[in-house]
């Protein structure tokens, strides 16, 4: 392989990696927000992404929605489901040992996966084509319209999220609760409402990722959320858990690394490399790339 084709291939993997990475980033945002606000690794978050993909699927096949309405429908549906899960399964356990709520999250995750299998059958479904696929060729590198859509939608959602968190009253409340729940409560913030809202937003973002993945890979199934869910958590840790820019950065980096590993080495090691990155970042900089270190007071 000569050097110019190597560069082209590298660029190609970069494009693929950024597309994949922006999907990780969307899921990671929810992970990081939920962890930031109630210190829970919400194992069910990957399954919300699956639910979102199915909501998008049914919106387009049964209700004949076009892309944008289907995306909004899916985000709304997943948002509601996320809020219901928080209300029913997590809120009663807020003062219980941390491990109990984690086990509950595992329970919810299994429930969504196997409930999904029962409800929509374990067979993978083909996601309908929502718009004409066009392929653009840039100096030997190929980028298709799905990838463009993924990038545009993800960026747009991230901008909206950043605006909501930084500029709105609810966003301020979210940051206050995540900084110090008790103090926020004393300041008159309705903590329950804020946590519920966080689950809603996080779930909606995951659902958007689900629809985008459906468009990208054309195939969805009830267990599709397990691996991306874990990977997105890796991305959140990589960027610094609790940090929104961190989740975006972590997702993108992870996506790029995975694409490069599959492109230049072997796709069977792709998942192992993701976890190896996780371990390295945890040992080297446990607070993540953009996180802050906190030490226990003696």
């Amino acid at each position: 392989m000569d050097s110019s084709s190597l560069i082209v291939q590298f660029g190609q993997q970069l494009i693929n990696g950024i597309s994949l990475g922006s999907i990780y980033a969307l899921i990671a945002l929810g992970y990081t927000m939920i962890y930031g606000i109630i210190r829970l690794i919400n194992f069910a978050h990957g399954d919300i992404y699956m639910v979102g993909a199915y909501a998008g699927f049914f919106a387009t096949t049964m209700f004949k929605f076009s892309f944008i309405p289907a995306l909004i429908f899916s985000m709304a549906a997943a948002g509601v489901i996320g809020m219901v899960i928080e209300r029913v399964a997590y809120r009663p356990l807020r003062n219980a040992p941390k491990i109990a709520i984690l086990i509950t999250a595992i329970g919810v995750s299994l429930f969504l996966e196997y409930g999904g299998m029962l409800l929509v059958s374990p067979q993978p479904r083909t996601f309908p084509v929502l718009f004409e696929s066009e392929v653009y060729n840039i100096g030997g590198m190929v980028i298709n319209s799905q990838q463009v859509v993924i990038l545009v939608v993800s960026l747009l959602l991230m901008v909206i999220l950043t605006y909501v968190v930084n500029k709105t009253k609810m966003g301020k409340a979210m940051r206050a609760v995540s900084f110090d729940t008790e103090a926020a409560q004393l300041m008159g913030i309705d903590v329950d409402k804020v946590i519920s809202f966080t689950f809603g937003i996080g779930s909606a973002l995951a659902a958007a990722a689900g629809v985008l993945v459906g468009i990208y890979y054309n195939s969805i199934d009830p267990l599709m959320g397990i691996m991306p869910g874990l990977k997105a958590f890796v991305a959140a840790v990589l960027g610094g858990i609790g940090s929104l820019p961190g989740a975006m950065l972590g997702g993108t980096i992870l996506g790029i690394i995975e694409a490069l590993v599959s492109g230049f080495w072997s796709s069977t090691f792709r998942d192992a490399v993701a976890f190896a990155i996780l371990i390295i970042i945890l040992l080297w900089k446990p607070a993540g790339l953009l996180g802050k270190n906190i030490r226990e007071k003696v």
Partner: protein
Amino acid sequence: MKLLQKTKSDIMALVACLAVYAIIQTLILTDVIGPFWQLNIVLIGINIILVVSLNLINGFTGQFSIGHAGFMAIGAYVSAVLTVKFQLPFIAAIAGGALGAGALGFAIGLPTLRLNGDYLAIATLGLGEIIRITILNISYVGGASGFMGIPRYTDFTWMFAFTVFTVFVIKNFIDSTHGRACISVRENEIAAEAMGVDTTKYKVLAFTIGAAFAGVAGSLFSHYFYIAHPASFTFMKSFDILTMVVLGGLGSISGSITAAVLLTFVSAALASYPEWRMIIYSLMLIILMLYRPQGLFGNKELSLKMLSRWTGGKKHGSTQGN
């Protein structure tokens, strides 16, 4: 006097074990217990080993590990290599499996146990997956299609002996100064250091012992099912074990045993409704956590006193809060 009491209860426990063994073995030999339940009894034993050993790490030492299936996989594969490729006797293979898993536990524990809480959890989960994916890529042990042709050496007797052995050793460990050191790490790491406990050493020690026994469980597992397959050791298996630990109660060995028996039975009983099995299982988990987040036994051990309190009402009115 106290010593005498201890020895006495030890002998009683031994007699009880032998009785349980004799009854079940007779039922198996007389075919009262058929192959399906025999399989599940062996699974119960393997699960008890896994759950008690993970409880040592999570429940007693307070280190949040969710990669136990990885160490089980090491035990399963190392022992299989020893019996199949090197024709070693089963007992040596089990020892090899335990040693391999323990050594890896030590090597992994040393750097990662500096992390706490969720970070350690996610790191161990990642490591478990790395172990599995690595095995998946080693053709010497069958790669993605699994390691086949493993002789069936495990039977009820082997399983029972090793289950009792595991519980005996881990229980003794916990009741010693070393076990107390582990528990002090769980209770308050800073105070433990201030009391002269080398907290890092005891975290790594608990992790290594736990991993070694997971290796034993893996060895028994692969030599029962003729095959070791990477798909048996995903993080779902780790979650399974963790679930049993939490359900039984973090820091309760009798709780771990009860939960392993209970959940294996539930799982077996639901085997004929495959599509409902995991849904009921997951709902049970959620409901149990909502109503009893500390698990069945909390951090206490099942004892005659506890039984009499349950059956005899709340006469003592004890206020042991949580």
